[in-house]
């Protein structure tokens, strides 16, 4: 037995020595690999592919996730100073938090360096402003997203209804079109992102605000209470399970003719005419949401301050992927941000939803530029869901949400 122990010990020592020798042999020269963390929808899939093809010898490894998971993952990685990702997806909301915490690479020197070569003046300053923090630019916008009002034009015509412009018209149309086999309207209240989008629309449409000028909660005002009471009334015409519906579920409901109308992202407009997935090809139409005020988000990519890769290289990959030619190709998938592409009248001819999209963009509103807004959104949508499902009355629910939000922001030093 002692002999066996000696043999085992010798075997372990030999294995360890072999491992040390193997690790000391220099690896073959590796190509540059940029790691990208991105939200997944058709437009981002297109742009990430464009990044992969941008520069020969530069490989792109992408991790796609739903938006709230992407933000969670990037927050965790960047807060630890990790170089797990070189390029991260950001939107105009979350970029504020990341830039404030010093997690993103300021792009101004690189922007100035490549301004002429990549025609960077083609990006509207109004959109670039959304990606500035203390006057420094931190991300490149790739597309603007907003929520349109999708409605079944064929059913409206059948019932002699006009596309709703106000909330009263919206409610009457939902009531008229609600049947046992088709819900009058979609409502997406899955926590947190989907519910936040619906609440944002209702608050804006009824003239309520999230915050006052001093960042005190204002959503529990009389207008805010009316907004959520209206949402509660609309749930009579919503499909079963709406409290668990997000973008995917509502898109399927619209495509399968299970709901007559509702708000949804412009990126989901083109699939309504996809005959392989949709039963309502040619029947859906789009307008600006009744009352206006749906969410507008500016999606883009930023470079992590902690990347060990060449930042100039990463920047050029992003610029090539977002050049005019590629934005024109992606125009059917999402709203391009370059002036030369967005203003092209040919796009409206090629995409049925463009007139509705442009109308919706005119009345869309971004979320408040508060770095802690994701937490605020969670608090408010939690209480709103309880109110809308009848667990609590609307006013007490909003008051409770306001109290919780105020405590959160006080702790973060917003009130002096």
């Amino acid at each position, binding site marked *: 037995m*002692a002999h066996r122990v000696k043999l085992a010990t010798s075997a372990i020592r030999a294995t360890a020595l072999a491992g040390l020798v193997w690790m000391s042999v220099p690896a073959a020269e590796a190509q540059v690999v940029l790691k990208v963390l991105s939200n997944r929808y058709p437009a981002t899939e297109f742009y990430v592919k464009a990044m992969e093809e941008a520069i020969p010898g530069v490989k792109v490894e992408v991790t796609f996730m739903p938006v709230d998971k992407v933000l969670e993952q990037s927050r965790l990685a960047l807060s630890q100073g990790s170089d797990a990702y070189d390029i991260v997806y950001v939107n105009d909301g979350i970029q504020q938090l990341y830039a404030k*915490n010093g997690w993103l690479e300021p792009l101004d020197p690189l922007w100035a360096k490549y301004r002429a070569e990549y025609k960077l003046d083609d990006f509207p300053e109004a959109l670039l402003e959304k990606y500035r923090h203390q006057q420094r630019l931190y991300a490149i916008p790739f597309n603007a997203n907003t929520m349109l009002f999708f409605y079944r034009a064929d059913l409206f015509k059948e019932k002699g209804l006009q596309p709703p412009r106000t909330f009263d018209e919206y409610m009457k149309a939902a009531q008229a079109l609600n049947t046992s086999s088709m819900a009058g309207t979609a409502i997406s*209240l899955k926590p947190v992102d989907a519910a936040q989008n619906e609440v944002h629309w209702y608050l804006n449409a009824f003239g309520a605000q999230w915050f006052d000028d001093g960042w005190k909660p204002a959503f529990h005002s009389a207008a805010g209470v009316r907004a959520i009471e209206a949402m509660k009334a609309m749930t009579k015409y919503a499909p079963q*399970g709406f*409290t*668990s*519906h997000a973008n995917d579920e509502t898109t399927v409901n619209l495509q399968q003719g299970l709901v007559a109308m509702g708000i949804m992202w412009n990126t989901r407009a083109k699939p309504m005419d996809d005959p392989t997935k949709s039963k309502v090809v040619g029947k859906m139409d789009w307008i600006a949401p009744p009352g206006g005020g749906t969410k507008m988000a500016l999606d883009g990519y930023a470079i992590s301050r902690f990347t060990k890769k060449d930042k100039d290289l990463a920047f050029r990959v992003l610029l090539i992927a977002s050049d005019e030619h590629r934005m024109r190709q992606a125009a059917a998938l999402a709203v391009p941000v370059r002036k030369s592409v967005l203003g092209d009248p040919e796009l409206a001819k090629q995409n049925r939803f463009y007139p509705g999209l442009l109308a919706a963009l005119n009345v869309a509103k971004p979320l408040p530029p508060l770095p802690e807004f994701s*937490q605020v959104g969670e608090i408010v949508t939690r209480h709103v869901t*309880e109110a809308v499902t009848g*667990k609590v009355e609307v006013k007490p629910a909003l008051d409770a949400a306001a109290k919780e939000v105020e405590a959160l922001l006080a702790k973060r030093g917003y009130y002096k």
Partner: protein
Amino acid sequence: MHWQSALRRFLIPSLLLLALVKLYPLGLSVYLSFFDYYLPEPERRAFIGFGNYGALLSDGRFWASFANTLIIAAAALALEFAVGLAVALGLYRLPVGAARVLTVLIFLPNIVTPVVAGLFLRWMFASQWGLIAMSFALLGIPPVDWLGNPAWAKVTIALADSWQQIPFVVLVLYAGLQALDRDTIEAAVIDGASGWKLLWYVILPALRPVILFVLTIRIMDLFRLFDAIYVLTGGGPGTATETLTFYTYRLAFQFLEIGKGSALGVLTMLVITMASSSGSTGLATCIWKPAFKARIRSSARP
């Protein structure tokens, strides 16, 4: 003996690894639970003693998540044990060959990754166009809002976990049944015991150690249930399916409140320890203590 003491050296790498992946994170978590620590502002981290614990214990949301945990765990445990025992007993009565084949088939759900299982269960439970909703519609049964109704959402989580874990319960109980002393069972049969009496007075008491084991493991797993909730309901609707573990995840990974999240993690660990040690013993006792008393009474009769 010399070679045995030499073998102890081989334990050192395992112990070091265990310390690194288990003890260090646990210790760090306990340490951080005494701090007010918001991850994006590490420079403002401050020691607050038991402040996080006090805040949690006085937080209605903590108690609501505790209640949700108890409800979902109790429902799932009852279903898993009842169905698992019934299936194990059924397999026990079959010829060995047939039982082996069925065991493999029955065990298939357990080898599916929980997140993957959650994803296709989500589409099955989807209202209106999910597979279950469509099946109910064909049978003329009114549709159920599996994921959108607060009460039904809890049931759905319990069902989803049961679907995956009943095979594990079956496997363990079946192995326990196969290890039973056949002479004892035959003697009981000769004495006139059959069916329900055989099960209650002979088989279950003999299976006590195995039942204890499976209940302990399931209680621990159910109190830590996360995957099914994350994929199916996201803790919703509202907070209807937000359990202790899910609330911990929200605090730490969504709100980046590391101190509070760590404190909740420590509290959850204490709850699981108490629940698994006392709950499984108490449950197992409830099953056969009446059986033992009845046996003693019947054997005491002339």
